[in-house]
């Protein structure tokens, strides 16, 4: 059993652990922290696959910006323990089994059908990043530009929604 595989298992375990705790934690803050755990471990996995740039972005944008935003909002609304209502009979009785069933189906299908794929080739970091930027500004320039508008929309939206009454 190679070291790489060990690392994989460790990181994967951490990721799953994080996801599970996200579910089990009853306070939003804890859930947020466990989500950060997932993200970080995923970043690790990206590195393991040799996608350094993505790993970096994952840490910076996700782990940094987005999650901070989350935590900030949680603080702002000082959301406490979530109350364990279950008005939804459906979710209460059918929800979890169904969700698990779905996950099972997807996992099974993927496991059955993706065995033939070759293992990730750890390409050199720089080259991969270079290719990345090439793609981004040549082939995918259109979506790339669109994302700028997307962010603009987000900003406008945020302003509209968050701005106080009687601006």
């Amino acid at each position, binding site marked *: 059993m190679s070291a790489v595989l060990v690392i994989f298992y460790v990181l994967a375990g951490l990721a799953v652990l994080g996801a599970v705790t996200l579910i089990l934690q009853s306070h939003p803050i804890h859930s947020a922290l466990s989500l950060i755990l997932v993200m970080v471990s995923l970043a690790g996995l*990206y590195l393991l696959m040799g996608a350094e740039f993505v790993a970096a972005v994952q840490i910076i944008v*996700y782990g940094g910006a987005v999650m901070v935003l989350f935590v900030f909002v949680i603080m702002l609304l000082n959301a406490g323990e979530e109350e364990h209502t279950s008005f939804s009979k459906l979710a209460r009785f059918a929800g979890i089994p169904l969700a698990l069933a779905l*996950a099972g189906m*997807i996992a099974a299908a993927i496991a059955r059908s993706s065995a033939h794929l*070759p293992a990730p080739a750890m390409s050199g970091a720089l080259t991969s990043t270079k290719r990345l930027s090439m793609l981004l500004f040549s082939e995918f320039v259109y979506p790339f530009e669109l994302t700028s508008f997307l962010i603009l929309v987000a900003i406008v939206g945020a302003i509209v929604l968050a701005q106080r009454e009687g601006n």
Partner: protein
Amino acid sequence: MVPTNYYLILSAILFGLGVLAFVFKRNIITIFMSIELMLNAVNLAFVAFSQARGQSDGEVFVLFVIVVAAAEAAVGLGIIILTARNRRSLNVERVDLLKL
């Protein structure tokens, strides 16, 4: 060497856990987190595939997804704040004025 489908299965599991979290959690913010979790699972799949195929497209997609996620986060949290302001609760189950 780690076979690609390990990564894929992991992503499937994470995605499933995200779905589970969505139906399991009550706090709107946490539910939103579970969505982020699902997106992360997707990213993992993307990266795994692109690496497996020796392409970089997948990683580009990941970048896009991250950006979109960020944008969604901005708007989503705005909406959440709005709701929290309108009704003093973050419990999604208490947001059920519109029904039937």
